[in-house]
């Protein structure tokens, strides 16, 4: 398992991608305890994906500003799940629909 293989750790990481947070703020947004959040943050920090700064009497966590490392780690998990999803949908799709035409927007 990579650093982002754990779903909870990935959820913490994705929240930090939207902006710096304290441990308490993360714990408030996730169904896990504050000590559990701290433990995941330590793993992410040791792995170089997350950094922390002291702000008053608390620590604020954010993604490592050398951000492509973090981005690539995240995308690694994204592609793994996305292609598993593609596999499932492709094999379930009907075979008769025509290929899309250029310029057509399909979602």
């Amino acid at each position, binding site marked *: 398992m990579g650093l982002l293989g754990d779903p909870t750790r990935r959820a913490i990481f994705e929240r930090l991608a939207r902006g710096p947070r304290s441990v308490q703020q993360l714990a408030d947004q996730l169904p896990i305890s504050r000590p559990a959040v701290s433990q995941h943050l330590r793993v992410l920090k040791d792995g170089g994906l997350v950094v922390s700064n002291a702000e008053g009497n608390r620590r604020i966590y954010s993604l490592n500003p050398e951000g492509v490392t973090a981005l690539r780690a995240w995308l690694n*998990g994204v592609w793994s799940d996305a*292609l*598993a999803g593609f596999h499932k949908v492709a094999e379930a799709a009907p075979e008769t629909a025509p*290929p899309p035409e250029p310029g057509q927007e399909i*979602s």
Partner: protein
Amino acid sequence: MTTTAPIPPITGTVTIAVPIDQAFRVFTGSINSWWPHEFHIGGADVAEVVLQVGVGGRWFERGVDGTECDWGRIRVWEPPHRLVFTWQINGSWQFDPDPARASGIDVRFTANGSAETTVEVEHRYFERLEGGQAIHDTIRGGGGWSLLLDGFAKSVVDQS
């Protein structure tokens, strides 16, 4: 030319029991169905993931609040064999409109007979993204390729 060291690409291969035309059609035309919606960049939850087909087409997410967040553009459109599109979210998790600073996703479709297709995905050129110069590969403990390929192997087994 820069002298930035390449960052290893992310690669993955999946073999599916459908004809090549269908594989290409689902990959491009039904991305909203298979792209996991929890993977997104914008602040709002995803309403849909859109890929506008053909060269120059936009790849973006539309949030439940109606806002759109660009991810990239289609560069090569060769149905049903090949597709190249960009990922232009940089190390600051922002869209960078400069195509010179884009990473690229090269997708190749190969027919194994009439009813099976192998799809190979390579996401490369991470070093071109702004923030890429400071890369240090600190991913440890079996991340990277092994994780990705484990995922595919599992999905193949689950499907068969």
